[in-house]
């Protein structure tokens, strides 16, 4: 297959062509309540071709490999048409030509574990949840993705690489009278099955939080100082800042690009943010991206100053900045887009107790519950939280959403905790692609004021 694909891209008359072919095996086990609603192991395949020609760009996806050659030719022609309509030609930054293989190996590789063992584990966790008091229902999924990819381009790159990861994840629904609350759980995030098994104690803690939430009061709306736990600070830095570090989002937005020049001060000197695809045991870890570029650590904010950006070859050329290896596609039918690998905040010097003691009237927000960003506006939820009154943690609260404007909020980060914690589950949405391979590694942070929306 590799030689055939290389022959296709080599035979085209275009400035640049690349072709990615994937064979993907997925396993899904899904419980809803006590019902096993899905059991599936299956394989899909397909490819994606991109061409840059005469300053324009065109792409195509195909299911039938027999269509690869025809579609590659059509894409090369479309790229030339697109180039003819542009005032400013698109071009690619130079990148090393890689001819190598990057298989994934680990001691307890999930590929060596039987399907029965995976099903039994999901069943065990699901039963644990349903057997607990005041639990109305649960959803428990085993989600495994094994991808074998071949990348070739017209510069001579020929790369074989793998993506292997699994999660057991879901949510726990507690109920008392008309009050119902949901708490999420997720274990795993790489090829090592031992990170999924033996997590009973962690699951028990999540069940207990779901039960405790039934006694919690809704958060009050208003403007408050908050401490975000590592899960929340991870979502905050991913949603609010991380997406703005993806250069394809800035490429065609002149006003925003002007605002986000390297060297701009974004926060206080205690704030250091990076993206790193080489962090071990994180969901966003990989060697090479889906544009054939090696992934490298990028310092995004250094001592509060914008110091780097995530790039494709196209955006690196346009911005005149270094390659970062962040072009990624979630599956065979998708074109790669610039996206974070594992985003992190370096640990600071503050003890958690000192952070709490510094707040007279505010909240400690715990457990990411998804977030969303549009430019410099962000919003995300917390699974639960605690009121902070007079420098002490108070009662548990629920129904918490916080929102704000990125730049003022980054400046309002006034304390950074001294221990980081990694995420086990990705789940980043961009360009219609939901990415499992997206990690975080962050400490708790204190923000002096954000808007809390209560119900």
């Amino acid at each position, binding site marked *: 297959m590799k030689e055939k694909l290389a022959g296709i891209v080599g035979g085209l008359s275009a400035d640049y062509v690349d072709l990615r072919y994937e064979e993907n095996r997925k396993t899904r086990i899904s419980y809803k309540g006590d019902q096993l609603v899905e059991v599936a192991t299956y394989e899909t395949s397909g490819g994606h071709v991109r061409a840059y020609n005469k300053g324009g760009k065109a792409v195509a996806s195909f*299911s039938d490999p027999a269509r690869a050659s025809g579609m590659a030719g059509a894409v090369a022609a479309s790229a030339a048409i697109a180039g003819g309509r542009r005032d400013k030609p698109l071009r690619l930054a130079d990148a090393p030509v890689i001819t190598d293989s990057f298989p994934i190996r680990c001691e307890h590789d999930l590929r060596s574990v039987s399907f029965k063992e995976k099903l039994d584990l999901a069943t065990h966790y699901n039963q644990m949840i349903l057997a607990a008091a005041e639990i109305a229902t649960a959803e428990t999924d085993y989600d495994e993705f094994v991808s074998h990819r071949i990348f070739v381009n017209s510069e001579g790159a020929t790369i074989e690489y793998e993506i292997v990861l699994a999660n057991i994840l879901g949510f726990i629904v507690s109920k008392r009278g008309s009050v119902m609350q949901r708490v999420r759980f997720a274990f795993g995030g790489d090829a090592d099955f031992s990170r999924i098994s033996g997590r009973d104690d962690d699951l028990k803690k999540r069940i207990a939080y779901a039960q405790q939430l039934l006694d919690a009061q809704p958060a009050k709306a208003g403007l408050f100082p908050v401490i975000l736990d590592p899960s929340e600070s991870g979502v905050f830095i991913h949603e609010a800042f991380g997406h703005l570090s993806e250069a394809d989002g800035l490429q065609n937005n002149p006003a925003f690009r002007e605002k986000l020049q390297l060297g701009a001060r974004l926060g206080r000197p205690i704030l250091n943010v990076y993206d790193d695809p080489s962090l071990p045991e994180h969901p966003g870890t990989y060697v090479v991206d889906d544009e054939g570029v090696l992934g490298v650590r990028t310092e995004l904010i250094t001592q509060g100053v914008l110091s780097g950006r995530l790039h494709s070859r196209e955006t690196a050329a346009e911005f005149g900045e270094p390659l970062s290896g962040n072009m990624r596609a979630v599956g065979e039918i998708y074109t790669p887009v610039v996206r974070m690998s594992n985003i992190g905040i370096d640990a600071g010097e503050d003890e958690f107790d000192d952070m709490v003691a510094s707040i007279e009237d505010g909240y400690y927000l715990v457990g990411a519950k998804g977030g969303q960003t549009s430019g410099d506006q962000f919003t995300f939820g917390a699974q639960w939280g605690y009121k902070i009154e007079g420098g002490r943690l108070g009662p548990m609260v629920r*129904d918490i959403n916080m929102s704000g404007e990125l730049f003022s909020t980054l400046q309002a980060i006034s304390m950074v905790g001294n221990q980081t914690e990694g995420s086990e589950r990705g789940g980043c949405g961009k360009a219609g692609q939901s990415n499992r391979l997206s990690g975080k590694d962050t400490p708790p942070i204190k923000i002096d004021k954000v808007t809390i929306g209560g119900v």
Partner: protein
Amino acid sequence: MHRLIENAKGAVDQAELYWKRTHTVDVSYQNNQLQEIAEDDLSSVALRVIHQGKLGSTFAVSPEQDGLIDQAKTAAAYGDRASFSFAPAADFPQVEALNPQTAELRSEDLVELCEATRDAIRASRDDLALGVSGQMQKQTLTVETTEGANAYHESAETALSIGAPIKGAGIGVYRWTGSVSPLSPPQTMIDEFLEWYGWTEKTSTPATGKLPVLFAPDASFLYLLPLWAGLEGGALEKRTSPITDRLGDQILSEKLTVMEDSISPGSIGARPFDDEGVPCQRRAIIENGVLRTYLLDQRTASALGQTSTGNAVKRELFGEGTETKPTPWPIRWMIPTGTRSYRDIVADLDEALLLYYGMGFHSGNYPQGQFSIQAIGFHIRSGEVVGRLENTMVSANIYEDFQHVREISSEQGNALGFLNVRAPYILVDSVQVAGL
């Protein structure tokens, strides 16, 4: 009948083939320049079987792929007891959705449409980093079962969207239109886009507290997704829905009617059958605020002792496609209009919000009818739009706040994204607003 289903007879108790083929052409302009031409040719297959009373699934790119029935049988060996059957033979409503002129649109046609639209906007505003995209998608969907369902539907739709980032802010203004027929540059949408863009150039802070909120068609997902979460069969089966056992009850304002309008010819997303091969229906979900029916697929209908409402869709809140399990989901909802234009409604408001989007919906407790979002829209004061909202949050519970709908506009607009909806502007009397 496809030979995969023929072969499945005798090999398994029952089988269901779902086969989708799409041809898509997409042209995208960013900052007024042609950024990318994309053309996809995709095929995807889902095979579900019931074997020895148990349910199993597999997926592929073609029904000709070797071993599909055996793969599904293997999955079924581990699967749960199937408490339902696949769809039987049925007569499907006529839904003409394949306009050959639409299906034959090429990238050159979409380039022409996008450039004409771009140039029309630039004639009024040449200072915008304008994004324009045009798309054509032709789809062929087959659903066949060993129980007799034999459903086939071809459709072609085209869409045009325009948008531009707001200077000095991170958000943008976007408008969208779609049709089963080829589009011309849509002057009404262009005029509205320019007017709305003009409104964004100033910011304004509303009062904090309970305020009237006018939900534009684009924002209808904020109150319709919590409603879906209460209506869908899975939540009823688990009895986690706040409207379990409430058929015939007044659950929303008597001014609100929500129709399942899935088979209207010429409508975006109209279709004769759902993703399980069950006929789609036109019916009232909410009639003058009264709950008339729920949304069921084959599985949840069986669990509840009812029949499917033709609402099985391979869709979740954040996922869709052939590999997604069918779940009860709206096919195409429509909310009937009122009598006055939204501009007249705005003119009567003293202090209010006009929302066209909300960020962070999924973080809220929507299964219980709540949403708490960062408001994207405009501040209305003394009957006029005075600027765009910034740092404003809106929180509501549809089963409480949407009991008090004050007015519904005479215009309707299409909204896509989470749901396929045709909705008017809806003014809710009193909604919690928090801001800086």
